[in-house]
């Protein structure tokens, strides 16, 4: 009887610990943005997205308010169409908000930074951001710098 009890306690402890570890791995090591209260999608067109990837953060004033849902190339207008999925809590963004692709740190990952405009009309699902600024490609920047410094 004592033996069975020890086995049962041992098994219970092991399984409980195992599921606790699974829970830790699935919730604490990844950042699952859940969009509890729903979300809306807006699109933005960029001439160059640099190293932006799906799931990259969308920040406003440095606060994460959404993420990049998809990136596609438009073969007609020859630019990149980026769909931004924004938390429905933030549904009062002016429709003349401008989007730029920024880099966190010198070699960090890239994200979409939003800068609020002054319009009274808010963005809604399916709207398009009209003012965008492409990613700064380091090579182009260095190239320009070299050309400019050569003139003097």
């Amino acid at each position, binding site marked *: 009887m004592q033996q069975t009890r020890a086995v049962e306690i*041992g098994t219970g402890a092991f399984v409980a610990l195992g599921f606790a*570890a699974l829970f830790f791995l699935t919730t604490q090591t990844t*950042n699952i943005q859940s969009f509890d209260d729903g979300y809306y999608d807006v699109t933005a067109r960029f001439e160059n997205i640099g190293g932006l990837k799906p799931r990259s953060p969308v920040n406003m004033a440095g606060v994460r308010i959404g993420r990049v849902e998809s990136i596609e190339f438009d073969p007609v207008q020859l630019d990149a169409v980026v769909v931004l999925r924004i938390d429905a809590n933030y549904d009062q963004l002016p429709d003349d908000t401008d989007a730029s692709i920024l880099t966190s740190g010198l070699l960090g990952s890239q994200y979409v930074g939003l800068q609020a405009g002054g319009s009274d009309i808010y963005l809604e699902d399916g709207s398009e951001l009209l003012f965008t600024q492409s990613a700064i490609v380091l090579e182009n920047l260095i190239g320009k710098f070299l050309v400019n410094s050569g003139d003097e």
Partner: protein
Amino acid sequence: MIRDIIGALVGFLRTFGAFQLFFMRLLAESPRALMRPRLIVYQIFNAGGLSLVLIMTCGFFVGAVVGLQGHSNLARFGTEDILGLFAAMSLIKELGPVITALLFAGRAGTALASEIGLMRTTDQLSAMEMMAVDPVSRVAVPRFLGGAFSMPLLVAIFSSIGILGAWCVGVPLMGVDNGAFWTQMQDGVARADVVEGIIKSIVFGLAASLVAVWEGYNAIPTAEGVGRATTRTVVITAVVVLVFDFMITAVAIS
């Protein structure tokens, strides 16, 4: 000469085919074995509970070593901040499932194989058959299910403790920023990465338990035969796990 080669090839195919049939039989008997959960619980304790201390100790030190190595290499590029991401990715996707499977083969697999092999040697399995008790459903299936159920949990424990080990080395010892350690990890690890680790642990658990039960069940009924079955369990599990690891990774990355 050629006849020998053909003979060896046919022998291999025969073993391989018998192995598949044994697997099918285990699966077919599984629902009936679930009717007797007590047997399975005991095997979960045997395979999982008793491996717990080993897995936790090894997990901690593997994580700590990843923390040390990662820190000294990342520091060259001034990117110590991503140590958390580096450790979590390598533990969740590769080191956790693979090392746990190898430890599992050494700790639980050999125990299963030698136990069943000894039952074979001492004619306990034949005795069961004589009493109209199917030794596959009574002996093999609970051990197989117990092992297969324990592995994913052991892997999760290994990876979690490993991340803790990397944290212990990285943050208090090496001075990586605590916030950066966790946020870089949380931003970098996608749910797909965790799922990949879980899929690996399930596959490895099935493979390791199956090999152990098979080797024990088909052990040559002598002392030497049981010893050989135990050795083969570890060797075959290691090879199978590493091959499967490559294949799953190739599928996940493409």
